[in-house]
């Protein structure tokens, strides 16, 4: 058991070593990351503009006020940013496998999953995190939340859990390349688009869609339930407490799916 723990710590160390090196390289050699960050910010500003324009015409969406919806959006942005900045590697898997470069991960004595996660850095993520963080802060200050130390701690846990769920979804769907060979990340993109549903209160959707984003690909736990908890909204808030558990579950599922896909890759060789 102690050996497993030590090994896990070593894997985390390797992850940070790889990621750190790539970050340094980008900062040193690539001036384009500024464009990336700015464009990410632009995307979010347009999203914010959209919501703002809508709320010019209506007072609320199913009882959800402007700042609550903005907060939902900010959580989507922040978690998107974390996924890009720290775990962009999940988006490179398709191209690696397609070009035959994935084998390089398999001949090293390190878990391929860790290598995948450490595989790339997307600096647009920093733009997402900053803008998303700003939006979150602004919406929190504009909303009426009863703050307790417990609630504040819960906020941190919720953001971390939301990010974990997002990354787990990226990792699990990245494994699809072991079944469907393409040079682009297709299934990950497809599922990522489901995140669109996470931008608005799920009460506006039909039951089928709700089931999809709550149970199947739990985007609702990235934005809807955490915000519901923070604002103590009806029955949803207690479900919001489940978010960390959902995060752990998603992580396990993602790792399991990826390993399963790896086994298939190793037997079909494609």
């Amino acid at each position: 058991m102690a050996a497993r723990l030590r090994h896990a710590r070593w894997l985390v160390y390797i992850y940070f070593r790889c990621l750190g090196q790539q970050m340094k390289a980008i900062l040193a050699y690539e001036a384009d990351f500024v464009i990336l960050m700015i464009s990410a910010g632009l995307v979010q500003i347009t999203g914010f503009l959209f919501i703002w324009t809508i709320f010019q015409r209506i007072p609320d969406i199913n009882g959800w006020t402007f700042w609550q919806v903005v907060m939902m959006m900010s959580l989507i942005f922040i978690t998107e940013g974390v996924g890009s900045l720290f775990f962009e590697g999940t988006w490179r898997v398709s191209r690696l496998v397609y070009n035959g470069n994935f084998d390089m991960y398999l001949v090293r004595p390190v878990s391929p999953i860790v290598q995948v996660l450490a595989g790339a850095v997307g600096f647009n993520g920093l733009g997402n995190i900053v803008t998303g963080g700003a939006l979150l802060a602004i919406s929190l200050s504009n909303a009426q939340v009863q703050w307790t130390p417990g609630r504040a701690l819960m906020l941190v846990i919720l953001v971390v859990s939301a990010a974990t769920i997002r990354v787990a979804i990226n990792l699990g769907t990245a494994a699809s390349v072991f079944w469907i060979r393409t040079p682009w990340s297709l299934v990950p993109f497809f599922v990522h688009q489901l995140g669109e549903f996470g931008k608005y209160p799920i009460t506006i959707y039909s039951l089928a869609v709700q089931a999809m984003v709550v149970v199947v690909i739990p985007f609702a736990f990235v934005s809807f339930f955490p915000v519901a908890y923070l604002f103590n909204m009806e029955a949803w808030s207690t479900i919001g407490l489940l978010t960390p558990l959902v995060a752990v579950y998603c992580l396990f599922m993602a790792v399991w799916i990826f390993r399963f896909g790896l086994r298939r890759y190793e037997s079909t060789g494609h």
Partner: protein
Amino acid sequence: MALIEAQGLTKKFRQAVKEPGLVGSLKHFFTRQYKDKLAVDHIDLSVEAGESVAYLGPNGAGKSTTIKMLTGILVPTSGRLVVDGLVPYEKRQKNAKNIGVVFGQRTTLWWDIPVIESFNLARDMYEIPAKRYKQNLAEFTELLGLDEFMNIPAGKVSLGQRMRADLCMALLHDPKMLYLDEPTIGLDIAVKDSIRKFIRRQVDERGTTVMLTTHDLGDIEDICNRIVIIDNGKIIHDGDLAALKDNYARDRVIHFQLARPPVSMDPICAGLPACDLKSDGLSLSVRFDRFEFAAGEIAAAVMPYVEVIDFRIDEPEVEDLIRKVYLGQLTLDAPDSAAETTELAVATEA
């Protein structure tokens, strides 16, 4: 106990089949058809520690598939495979510590970070003791001339530089096995030479076992002792390189440059096997079996009759040999019969 022990190793693939053209594409969109391919067909292979094996075959013969199974990337369909006491595909990460891999066409270095940082990451990944790492790094840097580009990202160095760095990367952790896939492809002659010498040195000094797949026969000549040829998934030859040349590549050709055309060919060619005089009358070639005649004998037979300005000797070409094998013009002994036999199973085109 051999380092690599493979028995009845087999790999079968299912491949999608598509007809050409737009109609074919449409059909392929809606239904897929498959056919089975036996890439590796029950091969037996045994490699001792310290051997240096060339693994040859035409494209599609099953070379990369075999190597992938040996490195643990691919799971065999059937058969037994043990490398240094481990089953590679079952204990892949553990096996990884024992092996170094150089893919000629792809790199194991990180693309965007300086080469030295890739090495440092390798040190952490393979958990190489600091002292050993420093030693190896210093030695390889010197032997491979890495200083000049150590701080440049792998994506920005030349192909030759990248190959040298890949080699260093593969050997930093003192692996027992080194797998090389087309290591000198696309390189200029000077770099090829230094890389071959370097690899040979690892075999000689450190006892590293090397398995090399290549189309470049210069690689084989400089690096390998043993040659294994695979075709259509089956091993069609497995033996000592020197014995191969002795048995199948016995011809040498000596070319004489003459001052004047000879008066008559008969006295010259009397005791000689194959004489050939070029149309300008000034180039005379004699092809002979090097076990039957010495070059000096041939020269002694020719020189009394003509004035020789210059001469040169062509050595037996492994290249010709291999080409003939690939073209099906030459069938070598099956792997289990020893190479000392003087009976040649030769089927040449008439």
